[in-house]
């Protein structure tokens, strides 16, 4: 029993990523924690592009971005492009990246998300006239730091499910 070659598991992982994206911190949590919320959807996408590059492609990544646009109240298409860019670079070098250690992969994710956050910050400055605090770039750091854990977890689960 493995409908769609484990495709359901890919979908579920993205749903979980979206839920984590909007998860409210407890009221007692210090305010700076809000800046450290990892970019869950990007992390999960990075994992799947590395693991099954033939299943998660540019168009899928771009469409997932629309969900993020609405959740984050960004202009439509912004997150789609950020995720598509991440997918393209990851896919281009996925054979090499797979050979690398988990920490090296994390640093690649860091750079990709840094580029993404700079794009988002610039867009918010242009469109809404919002500030672009340096703290906004911490997303890349927290995501890269949590990457090893997520990567190992998803790797174990996808082996059990048998995603092909």
């Amino acid at each position, binding site marked *: 029993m493995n409908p769609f070659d484990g495709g359901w598991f890919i979908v579920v992982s993205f*749903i979980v990523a*979206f*839920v*984590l*994206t*909007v*998860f*409210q911190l*407890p*009221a007692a949590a210090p*305010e700076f924690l*809000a*800046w450290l*919320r990892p970019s869950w959807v990007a992390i999960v996408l990075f994992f799947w592009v590395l693991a099954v*590059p*033939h*299943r998660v*492609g*540019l*168009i899928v990544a*771009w469409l997932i971005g*629309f*969900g993020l*646009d*609405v*959740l*984050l*109240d960004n*202009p*439509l*298409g*912004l997150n*789609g*492009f950020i995720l*598509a*860019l991440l997918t*393209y670079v990851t*896919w*281009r070098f996925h054979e090499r990246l797979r050979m690398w250690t988990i920490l090296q992969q994390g640093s690649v994710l860091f750079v990709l998300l840094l580029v993404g956050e700079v794009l988002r910050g610039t*867009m*918010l400055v242009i*469109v*809404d*006239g*919002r*500030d672009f*605090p340096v*703290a*906004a770039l911490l997303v890349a750091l927290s995501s890269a730091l949590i990457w090893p854990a997520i990567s190992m977890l998803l790797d174990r689960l996808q082996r059990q499910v048998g995603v092909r």
Partner: protein
Amino acid sequence: MKAIFFRESGAGYLLFALGLVSLILASVDALTNLLVPVRQNIGTLMSPAYFIAETPYQLSDQIGRVFASRDSLQKTNDELEQRLAVLAQVSQQVRSLSSENERLRALLGSQERLATEVLISEIVGVVPDPRIHQVVLDKGADAGVFVGQAVIDATGLFGQVIAVENTTSRVLLVSDVAHAVPVEVNRNGVRSIASGTGVFDELTLESVPVSTDIRENDLLVTSALGGRFPRGYPVGSVRSVVIEPGAAFAQVVLQPAAALDRTRYVLLVRELPPQVNLVAGPLDDEAAKADDAIDAQATDSGDGQASEQSDAGSQP
């Protein structure tokens, strides 16, 4: 997928095309309202995420309720009863005061104040970007929520609805940098605009001339100019007034009245349409007469003029 999109040369072109489409979409979305229905549909699709993310808190609430001791329940119950008694006493006065106010307004010939109704709603999510002060409520278009609706909490103005989905709606908080609300000083009716600063516990007043009569601890309430917010909800109190020598405007910082980062329940306010007055004719005549009388008085004292002016907010 691979055969179509991931040929060595094709992917680069595809990325370029997606970037171009994204740029066009983002520009259209930022400059026009054309994509609002699209956003609404995607938002409806995404709204279950908020409810799932909210379940741990609801579960812990439930568990807390199940295991709450009798004593603590008794204690909260007593406290609530006391508060209810106090509030009931205040609302008794409110009824007589509002009817008195209505009579006085009729004498002045100004429009009747609109009655309001409220819808209680729970905050189920926040926009996970600290730059953007927005929350998501558990009531949407299905419950009659509409874009532009004012949102208050127990202590003051909270924000306004900026997007509705079927079962959720998004509220822009007064503290967001993109938010501004017309206000007036409760003490003397001086008007201004309170805008958000991107910090939860700070609002600023825009373009306040240094000669304006505004002091620390003054309460600012919504003035209903602009027609979006009902009149008279507290927005904030003045925390500091700084006048730099030579500057044209004073820097006025407000403490928001609402508990912007702590509230869980908020009220959606809706102004009911004015009730049709079946005996409008004679009453109107009376009001006109009263108006004339006041105008006559106003010519020598100037008092009526001032009160007319402070009522300007409710004039159509």
